């Protein structure tokens, strides 16, 4: 038998063929593989915005002067405040915020322009609905910065001198500070985790539950073909999901893809292998599909919370950061964001790559050993 015939007649192919048919017919799996990417993208790309902009703002302008109008213009130019109307007095202002018509109010007292002209400190006030500190913090700091800048301009005009300090902030890699740019690359990592762990482990447990695994072991298929035929389809699905998310991310959310995509695909290998190891491990522990699903979610929860997918790791208490270091996703997110957003290469990414490779080897070897034992 020549080499080509041997490859063509390898017992791995019927496994692959069967697996794809089953995947296509299983609605839940299909939904998880196609629906989840879509939902995750929309949820985390659109809905979850950690940067809150465009707070609806009312103005109580008791000064009604050129200077007060200039201040309103400066505030709206920050992009944090959207003017939705003017109010006549403090009662109307309180009404507007309490009823939710506005979540911020700009108050300019009657003596605002007079104070500026006389060289005294003019006061103005921004009231922000800060019940949710996360959503108000960027508006608050934006307002402070805008006021400082306006003050500097006034001083410079008065003394006909350039401002003493001109600090220019350059937010690299995500100049518009959009959270989608931060989140969407992470969606790839979360999806691969779901496919490799949840879907793979339930697929294997299903074979055991229904007695088809036992039937397969009696056939001459052999362990390597059995395992490869079972795992490779999910790897292919993972790469397709990844490509789709990247394409949609670029089209819909204008996610930059600065770095080398082939490098990203390559460095995804250890992440996939490690995750498959976890999936395989779960399949040897779980007695039925429900258990496999529960174990998978149990593993995925810390991945979503502690890996730096949504919440920045630097903001976490130290023990949470240490737990994060035990999750392959933490390192894979570094690689994803590093390549896609920063365009860095293996020279800067060798640490997360090394960590992922260690995870992959350990997890896969351990789980393949365990799995082999269970099919003897």
């Amino acid at each position, binding site marked *: 038998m020549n080499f080509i015939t041997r490859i*063509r*007649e390898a*017992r791995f*192919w*019927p*496994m692959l*063929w*069967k697996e794809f*048919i*089953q995947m296509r*017919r*299983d609605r839940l799996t299909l939904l998880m593989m196609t629906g989840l990417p879509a939902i995750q993208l929309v949820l985390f790309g659109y809905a979850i915005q950690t940067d809150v902009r465009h707070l609806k703002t009312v103005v109580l302008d008791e000064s009604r002067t050129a200077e007060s109008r200039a201040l309103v213009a400066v505030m709206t130019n920050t992009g944090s405040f959207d003017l939705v109307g003017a109010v006549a007095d403090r009662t109307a202002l309180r009404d507007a915020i309490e009823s939710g018509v506005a979540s911020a109010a700009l108050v300019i007292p009657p003596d605002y322009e007079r104070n500026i002209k006389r060289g005294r400190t003019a006061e103005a006030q921004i009231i922000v609905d800060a019940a949710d500190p996360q959503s108000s913090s960027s508006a608050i700091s934006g307002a402070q910065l805008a006021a400082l800048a306006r003050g500097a301009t006034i001083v410079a005009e008065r003394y006909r001198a350039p401002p003493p300090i001109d600090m220019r902030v350059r937010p690299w890699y995500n100049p518009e500070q959009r959270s989608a740019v931060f989140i969407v690359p992470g969606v790839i990592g979360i999806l691969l985790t779901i496919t490799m762990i949840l879907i793979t482990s339930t697929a294997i447990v299903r074979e055991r539950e*229904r*007695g*088809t695994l*036992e*039937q*397969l*072991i*009696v*056939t*001459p*298929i*052999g362990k390597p073909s059995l395992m490869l035929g079972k795992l490779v389809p999910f790897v292919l699905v993972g790469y397709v999901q990844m490509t789709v998310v990247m394409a949609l991310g670029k089209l819909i959310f204008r996610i930059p893809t600065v770095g080398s995509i082939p490098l990203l695909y390559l460095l995804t290998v250890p992440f996939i292998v490690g995750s498959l190891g976890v999936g395989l491990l779960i399949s040897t522990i779980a007695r039925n599909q429900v258990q496999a699903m529960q174990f998978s979610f149990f593993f995925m929860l810390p991945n979503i919370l502690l890996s730096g997918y949504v919440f920045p790791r630097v903001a976490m208490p130290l023990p949470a950061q240490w737990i994060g270091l035990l999750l392959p996703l933490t390192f894979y997110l570094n690689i994803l964001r590093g390549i896609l957003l920063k365009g860095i290469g293996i020279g800067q990414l060798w640490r997360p790559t090394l960590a992922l490779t260690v995870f992959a080897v350990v997890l896969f070897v351990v789980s393949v050993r365990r799995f082999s034992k269970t099919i*003897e």
Partner: protein
Amino acid sequence: MPSAPPAEAVVTEGLRKVFQGGLVAVDHLDLTIHRGEVFGLLGPNGSGKTTTIRMLCGLLMPTAGRAAVVGHDVEREPELIRTKIGYMSQRYGLYDDLTVYENLRFYATVYGLHGRLRAERLEKHMDEIGLSSMRTQLAGTLSGGWKQRLALACATAHEPEMLFLDEPTAGVDPAARRAFWKSIYELAAHGTTILVTTHYMDEAERCQRLAFLSRGHLIGLGTVQEILAQFKQPTIEDVFIELQRRDEGAAA
């Protein structure tokens, strides 16, 4: 050069299986099954029938003793055995979400059938078992009897030398059981050796030779006539109950 086929399909000597926790499932089993025989393995639940079959198929490793299936040692050459045997368990091992044809095609390919040979063999099998009209039906939607036929077809698509059937007729109606046994005899007529376990005594009487197992060891062996004469009982069912009573009495 192909070696001459051994005269015996199964030979076991002192076969023993002890599970973790110390349960002795099979003990000192000496058994010989001739080529082309329809051999019945009887015994109550937990008597070691399934464990024996699983050891002969290479699903379980023996703790002690030797077993050879179609001329190959189960511990040293399990891969060779797997290409030459078929196995059908009470769970059938069918993929519910594949069609009748896809199930057949999958198992045939796993057993190394390809191209025209596979296509011809599959058509022949679908005709023989009367499943041609159901080829695109999902296996999960078949009734018990049809599932059983499909499982048999899947286990025999590669025309194995020996077929292991572990309670193949549990839970199917009498008509389906009769049809099933007709297929068994046809396979045997073509030279396939068959080892079958069952709880139905009418099925036991259809076997050429029988072995009775109780609590892991062999307590009776021979043709139906020999066994009836040996134990002076009118039917196999009476023998079964009597042997089990004696064995349990001996243990007490």
